[in-house]
């Protein structure tokens, strides 16, 4: 007769893994922790530097006054801040419509190979470097109009935002309970009516949040704007003219050989960091609380 299970257990070696295995275990676990520290440390340093160097230049004037010539104290980036808002607003109008429509299509009708191909295309689009999108928008819009313009910049940003909005719209619309659709259909509403007046309103909060996240990220894009919206030293809100933007202005001011411009660049970087990261943080926290 074979020994009882308890006897077999007793026959096992006691004391767990040997010294070598325990040492290796401790080493690997410590290494993983050190990896996390190595990843987070430069980031924390970066944020600390931006705050420390940017804060001295932060004042109301930075937001409301125009850039001053080199050597004159004061001055701000009012034109660039307004320019970024205009660019992001225009890009949102385009991207939310097209991306939202696509996401809605994928969630409501998205079965079969065509929808799969659309999803994959959107993911590939997300991987296209922003400078390449800038080059394409240059050929598409700038050459067509004949000069650099805000609308060209907005279109470039819209292309960059598109994949994010498509994906998150699809996810949010899929979260709308099936019973809503069934109830509306049972009342005799045609499919389009169900989507348009029941599903969309139910998903709208999520779509707005996701779009805001994408917009915050678009606000920080620089490379495509260099080739499309160009930048502008003066006040301009016209869509068909070159327009200033915060990231491009930071780029110009950081590379300039004047220390007061460099200070402005630090402050601009701080404002951008606050704008993009704070908006992302708040939205993500809000989403977590709801979902």
């Amino acid at each position, binding site marked *: 007769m074979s020994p009882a299970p308890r006897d077999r257990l007793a026959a096992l070696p006691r004391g767990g893994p040997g010294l070598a295995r*325990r040492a*290796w*275990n401790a*080493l690997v*676990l410590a290494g993983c922790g*050190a*990896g*996390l520290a*190595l*990843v*987070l440390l430069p*980031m924390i*340093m*970066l*944020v600390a*530097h931006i705050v420390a160097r940017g804060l001295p230049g932060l004042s109301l004037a930075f937001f409301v006054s125009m850039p001053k010539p080199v050597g004159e104290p004061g001055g701000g980036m009012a034109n660039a801040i307004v320019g970024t808002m205009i660019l992001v607003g225009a890009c949102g109008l385009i991207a939310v419509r*097209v991306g939202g*429509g*696509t996401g*809605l*299509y*994928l969630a*409501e*009708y998205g079965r079969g190979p*065509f929808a799969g191909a659309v999803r994959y*295309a959107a*993911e*590939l*689009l*997300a*991987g*296209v*470097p*922003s*400078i390449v999108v*800038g*080059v*394409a928008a240059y*050929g*598409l819009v700038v050459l067509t109009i004949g000069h650099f313009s805000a609308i060209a910049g907005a279109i470039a940003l819209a292309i960059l935002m*598109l994949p994010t909005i*498509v*994906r998150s719209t699809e996810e949010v619309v899929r979260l709308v309970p099936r019973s809503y659709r069934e109830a509306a259909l049972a009342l*005799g509403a*045609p*499919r*389009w009516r169900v989507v348009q007046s029941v599903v969309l309103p139910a998903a709208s909060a999520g779509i707005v949040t996701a779009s805001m996240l994408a917009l915050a*990220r678009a606000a*920080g894009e*620089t*490379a495509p704007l*260099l080739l499309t919206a160009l930048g502008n030293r003066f006040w301009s809100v016209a869509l068909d003219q070159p327009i200033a933007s915060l*990231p491009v202005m930071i*780029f110009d001011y*950081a590379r300039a050989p004047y220390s007061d411009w460099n200070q402005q*660049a630090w402050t601009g*970087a701080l404002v*951008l960091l606050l704008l*993009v990261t704070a908006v*992302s943080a708040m939205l993500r926290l809000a989403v977590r609380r709801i979902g």
Partner: protein
Amino acid sequence: MTSSAPAIGRPLARADVRARAGLADPAYRALLTLFAVGVFAVLALIVWECARGAAPSLAAFGWRFLVSADWDPVAEKFGALPYLYGTLVTSAMAMLLAVPPCIGAAVFLAELAPRGFGAVASFLVELLASITSIVFGVWGLFVLAPWLRVVIEPWLIAHLGFLPLFRGFPFGLGFLNAGIVLAIMIAPTIVSISREILLATSRTLREASLALGATRAESLAVTLDAARPGILGAMILALGRALGETMAVTMVIGNTNRISASLLGSGATMASVIANEFTEATSKLHLAALIELALVLFAVTVVLNAAARLLVRWTTGGRRDVAGAA
């Protein structure tokens, strides 16, 4: 009264409902499909615009564009080799620096960290991914460059100067700076996708190996083995990002068209030279050469992305939230 209207008292037939909806349903669906086709159209337009713009350069230089190191706007001779080299060197350095700590961090967050700490740290990593590249550029230019110039590079020259990699003068700006900045920038991508993949694959494997008496480290080897294709996918995605990164690199790489064997030397990448010279291109051919660089960059990143996303999907069994988080 038309004959298709249902008589009172008779239940609605399917055909009646269809007839009432009329053309509205197909029209609505067609409209949404049109938006979806728009995504393809955008991709196609990018290819078309880059190919059209690059045509003069393609015709003038052919494949020699990729192997010639001669970039001379005055003589109208354009060869992309220095930029291919710069892109390759900086991205390779970024991967070497970023991958080991990032995999450690992902493992720590997915398997070892207490739940609350893991959630907070993961949230932090996600936030770091939202920091824009121009901010990294400012930091690299004003903080990292002086530090490299004064502390790190003199040390490297003094102690490792016998290697060709570390010969030269401490400038602060160059391949080394660009590689470090890129490594910091791609870290959140690798960490958050690898963490998701580990979470998606590990549970039963970990429990089984622990039950067999494995230590934590030994059970990690098992789960990492299963997650390997997905983590490879995360690394390729990060590589694609590093290859295409523009602003931060432009600010710290020094912007010369030299091929220097030393990491302390300056250079340029495909993306950075486009950003630098595009609006100041002196001739049609110069512009076409820059657009051809964009075309090459596009081709490389699309191929890498396609492969990476297939790997991530395969490992996670098609969980969209992981594949898409990339």
